[in-house]
């Protein structure tokens, strides 16, 4: 299998006035194409910081990050913007949709920034929204959708541009059980069908049970890395 993400001795230290805080402490991991990975751990264990680092949103204070063989930790900000646009899909905890765009426009948004053809955007956005069960909500604005529906649109948006991997930061945290299971079904299905690497941070047991690999972080370090058969 192809390695999509590789981190070597990854570190993120915050220099507080009292004492430096090692949010991510020497993490060396590899993620393979098509993996469905849950990063778990208690609050403050470094899950979100780790996702921000491999997503190119934050700069490490030490170590390296390779995405598809490209070192991203030394990239300039403008290069990182472009890199994220072309390679990474994001799903955040609190339904981060663009409020003034419809569901279909939200799903098309990244493809629009990538300057894909109108026909391709149209087809792919409709197809993705059908896959997440929202074919009847194409022209609904986020405020006309429930929390679960918004999160499904966010997943559709993250996957529509066919990124190398998708990072999801506690995607089910604000959802009821039914919506959470529904979302997980969709993510699992798309992961298999599109063969897109999915990495999500969570402390939701319902999510952990569905993951193919579970990495546990404690105090910024990997305490357990297990593949679930």
């Amino acid at each position: 299998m192809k390695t999509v993400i590789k981190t070597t001795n990854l570190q993120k230290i915050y220099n507080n006035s009292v004492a430096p805080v090692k949010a991510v402490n020497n993490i060396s991991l590899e993620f393979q194409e098509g993996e469905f990975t849950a990063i778990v751990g208690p609050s403050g264990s470094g899950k979100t910081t780790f996702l921000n680092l491999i997503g190119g949103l934050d700069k490490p204070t030490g170590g390296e990050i390779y995405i598809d063989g490209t070192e991203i930790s030394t990239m300039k900000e403008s290069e990182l913007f472009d890199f994220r646009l072309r390679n990474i899909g994001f799903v955040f905890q609190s339904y981060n949709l663009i409020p003034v765009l419809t569901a279909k426009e939200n799903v098309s948004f990244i493809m629009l920034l990538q300057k894909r053809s109108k026909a391709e955007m149209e087809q792919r956005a409709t197809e993705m929204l059908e896959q997440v069960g929202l074919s009847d909500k194409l022209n609904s604005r986020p405020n006309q959708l429930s929390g679960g529906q918004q999160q499904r649109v966010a997943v559709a948006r993250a996957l529509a541009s066919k990124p190398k991997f998708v990072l999801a930061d506690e995607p089910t945290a604000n959802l009821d059980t039914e919506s959470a299971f529904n979302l997980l079904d969709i993510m699992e299905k798309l992961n298999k069908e599109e063969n897109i690497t999915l990495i999500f941070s969570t402390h939701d047991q319902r999510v952990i049970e569905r993951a193919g690999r579970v990495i546990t972080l404690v105090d910024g370090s990997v305490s357990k890395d297990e593949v679930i058969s």
Partner: protein
Amino acid sequence: MKILLILAWRNLWRNKKRTLITISSVLFAVLLATLFVSMEKGSYERLIDSMVKYSTGYIQIQDILYDEEPSIDHTLLFDEEIEEILNKYEEQIAYHVPRLQNFVLVATENNTRGSILNGIDPELEIKMNDLNEDVVKGEFLKPNDNGLMLAEGLAGILNVTVGDTLVLLGQGFHGSTAAGTYPIRGIVDLKIPDINNNTIYMSLSEAQWFYGTDNRVTSLIIMPENPARTQQLAESLRKVIDPEWHRVLTWEELLEDLLNLMKFDVAGTMVMMMILYIVIAFGLFGTILTMLIERRKEFALLFSLGMKRAQVAIVCFFEALFISMAGVILGIIISIPVVAWFYHHPIPLSGDMAEAIADYGFEPVLPFSADPTIFINQALIVLIISFLIGLFPVYKVFRINIMEAKK
């Protein structure tokens, strides 16, 4: 670019009330500013029109020394040479009005008073300012008339009327004595008190004989076919008039003191306008700032998705521009009929102010100007202000820390 415009436009309507209030504030500011400037300009235009019509004309040709030291010895010889020059520009010149003006002592049996004697060509003067319409007693001067026309105020001071004879005494050309007796043909109401109390009119030919100046005049007023091209005509005349002996002055140069006074007054108005502009600026700035603060997390999302800072900055800049443009366009659309209405129906004044204005011969109203530059200037000023305010979110967007904004 289309998506950036869509985002900016839709963002404006996320909080309709706020956007509409901001647009309204810009609209009312533009409307107020336009009305304010229109009223001020209207008053100045009327004053200038009146001064040009009754006093200076658009262009004057004078002796080179007359402007600095107005004296009968510094007069201009209105000869064939000047006539020929004026003929060359006959297409641009509607007509010219010669005048000979000097101080004179005017006496009756019991009174003596210093006055200003104006030697005029009666027909040309009527053409220029309808002076005959201001005759309140007797008749207007005829060409080569050997009588006088007296301003009403001066007639009252001297206690004389039509048919009485006055003794005039003054200094003629090159120190000669100018003296004569003249019957009063008519009394004219000159409205402006200072002028009304010391003005005498005489036909030009009689005045030239009285002062012994032959064909000399103190000023030759040029009335252009197109007053808007006064400056160009003056420039052309300057090239052909002998600068060693003659001087060409425009009404702006002749009324320099008055214009400076107006500029001073305009500076006061500008302070008022600046306050208005600052109010607009703060209103707009407040809206933009609120929009920025409440969308920090959204900006972080857009950056995360791969939208560049410049693209987000353009969206924010468009938002500021859209609000102000909507306010400016609506403000101008509403201002045009309002100003047009006041232009045709000036605000009537009452009480002491109305009396004071009427004393100066003006209709007691506040006139408005419908000059299109007023609308264009206001629109440009507000747009420049909003452009500058629009740069603030651009600056802020480039400084947003994604990780902090995400929290």
